[in-house]
């Protein structure tokens, strides 16, 4: 009696049933939105060391608090922000000029706060989408520099007097150079408290996206169809543009397979009785697997080498992989056709060691 269904109907049937699953994966956006941003203004700027510049520090923390609240409530609120920050700059500059009497230091302060104001005037759009200049010091080869971040640096002239020592209180018999370095660094730290919440907000916006990417990679390394090093190389090469783009990305939804060997059980209805079941070596010449769709599914071109008495020892066909593990396929041996499954097909019922023992009985 002829079989009701020829073996080669299998791939068509499978494709019809499973095609919708290929397009049914959750979108990246919906997965990211499952993890909303967690941010509040309660943490705020924290004073970690007592600063000599207490008034500036107090002002900076007040500005930081207002910026933080504006981040949460204002959309494109630029004018209030610019005024707030320009006033803060002016007040801080005045306070610093009172503290330092050294002409070179005063000149540096005036110049750098001018740069600060220039950068504040460029702020536009949403608050978090702007850079907020920070003061900093640097000492290289005995020269002291003072600047906002990436602005033009001011060199503090090396004719240091004891005016900075008056600011620092002559701690540990500091040299004038060291005193100016310490004092300006302290001033910069006190001042920079003003933008702590903006940085925290940026990192909070990153959190759900980075969490999504991290869990996607964990899922991939754990669940995706296992690959040989050749498969990994092929997948990396085909997706070269995807992985080399200027953004951090999740694993690509498609894996590729190239010259992948596997053991299979084949049933060939057309073979003579007693020789219808064979174990063989399948080589997946080229395959693709959608590892993260609702029903993970893959298809590949294969050849199966099996030691039949009368059938062709080499057959060619298609293989379908489900759930990133089990594969079932069809092979054409010229005068006959067979259906095969990989060892993983029995994963549902048996452990690997049992499968191995059963396979070895066929050797």
């Amino acid at each position: 009696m002829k079989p009701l269904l020829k073996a080669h109907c299998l791939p068509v049937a499978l494709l019809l049933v499973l095609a919708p699953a290929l397009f049914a994966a959750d979108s990246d956006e919906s997965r990211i939105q499952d993890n909303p941003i967690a941010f509040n203004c309660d943490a705020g700027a924290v004073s970690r060391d007592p600063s000599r510049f207490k008034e500036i520090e107090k002002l900076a923390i007040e500005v930081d608090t207002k910026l933080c609240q504006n981040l949460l409530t204002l959309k494109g609120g630029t004018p209030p922000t610019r005024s707030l920050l320009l006033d803060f700059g002016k007040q801080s500059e005045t306070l610093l000029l009172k503290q330092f009497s050294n002409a070179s230091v005063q000149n540096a302060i005036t110049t750098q706060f001018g740069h600060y104001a220039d950068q504040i005037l460029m702020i536009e759009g949403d608050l978090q989408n702007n850079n907020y200049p920070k003061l900093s010091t640097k000492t290289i080869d005995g020269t002291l520099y003072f600047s906002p971040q990436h602005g033009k640096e001011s060199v503090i002239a090396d004719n240091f007097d004891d005016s900075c020592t008056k600011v620092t209180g002559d701690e540990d018999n500091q040299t004038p150079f060291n005193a100016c370095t310490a004092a300006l660094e302290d001033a910069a730290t006190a001042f920079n408290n003003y933008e702590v919440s903006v940085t925290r907000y940026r990192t909070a916006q990153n959190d759900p996206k980075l969490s999504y990417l991290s869990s996607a990679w964990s899922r991939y390394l754990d669940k995706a169809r296992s690959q040989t090093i050749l498969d990994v190389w092929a997948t990396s090469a085909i997706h070269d543009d995807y992985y080399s783009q200027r953004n951090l990305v999740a694993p690509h939804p498609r894996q590729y397979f190239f010259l992948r060997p596997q053991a299979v059980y084949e049933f060939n209805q057309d073979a003579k009785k007693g020789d219808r079941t064979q174990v063989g070596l399948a080589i997946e010449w080229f395959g693709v697997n959608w590892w993260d769709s609702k029903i993970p599914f893959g298809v590949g071109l294969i050849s199966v080498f099996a030691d039949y008495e009368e059938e062709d020892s080499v057959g060619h066909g298609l293989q379908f992989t489900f759930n990133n593990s089990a594969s079932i396929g069809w092979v054409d041996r010229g005068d006959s056709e067979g259906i095969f499954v990989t060892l993983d097909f029995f994963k549902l019922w048996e452990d690997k060691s049992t499968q191995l023992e059963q396979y070895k009985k066929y050797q």
Partner: protein
Amino acid sequence: MSKPVILLIHGMGTHPLDNMTREFKAGLMEAANGFGIDAFDPDESMDITEFNYSETLDNIRKKLAEDAQEILDLFPNGTPGSEIVNKLLAFQANFSEDELVYTHWLDVALYSLYYGESIRVELARKLNNLFKEADNRRVHIIAHSLGTAVLHDTLDKFYKVLAPGEGDDDYPYLRAGGQNLKTLWTFANVNRLVSVLNNVADRGPTVVRSGPTGCTDSLYNIYHTLDPFCWFEPYKEDTVTIESGRHFETRVVRKKNTHSFQEYVASPEVAKYLLAELVQAVEPLKPDNFAAYVEKHSENTVSNIYDKIEAKVDDIKGGRNQISNAAELFELLKTFVDTVENIWEEDE
């Protein structure tokens, strides 16, 4: 002064957690003592943390080996198909061995494949968390060898140069010029070499730079003239311009391994800048202190060892222009290591 945050990123090979921290502290303490800084304790001066991707790569390597062995076990020698399966998978089944080619070189290969993106995502998470928790503290990153490529590629994807008012809602990012590192240190920088393999970051200018459109206030790059990892696609003065910071070329040879991270850190000129930038130490800036440490540091140099190695390896170095693939690169490096071993043995 608040403690700065120091993030360390190791190179190729198996690195147990805290291994790099120990080497960093040892190198820095040797230098601090040499400069006359009394009772220098790195833990009192800075918060040191590591990004360790060694275990991730080791797990990937072992899983690949196990998966290959599983298939090989199904085709024992002599069974039909075993010869083909062996040809395809025997190499992969050895990935969990302890030989240098698997514990070190394979790291470079695996990082250059798509696995690298999973490592970059984790480094970006680590950096994001550091900025979240740093408040107003300075954040410095120090990377060695393969770690320089991991770092460079990650920063290139994570930092964006954006105009005022411009943002990106689709991908995680930090703003260049907004959430900047204070300093970035690369020891034996191989990112230009790795970019040949993985095509992730350009070998030309990227956001990984100091200056107005960079991700760090200052960039410091250090290479040893006899560190062979720095010979290929070198990251140095004639290939990379540093706007704020500088390149260092070190030459003293005290140990066989010219690629040693601890030796790099202990180098006087490098340590002077490290201590100045990380903890604002002023003692190394005094000429007398600096000279004293230079002398002390070179006490353990084997006399003329540098010249002997340089003379022998000139030929090897010349061969670098004929390198066309990773296997040839590996052979050349192996030749270098064997040559250096012989020189040290002759000298002992």
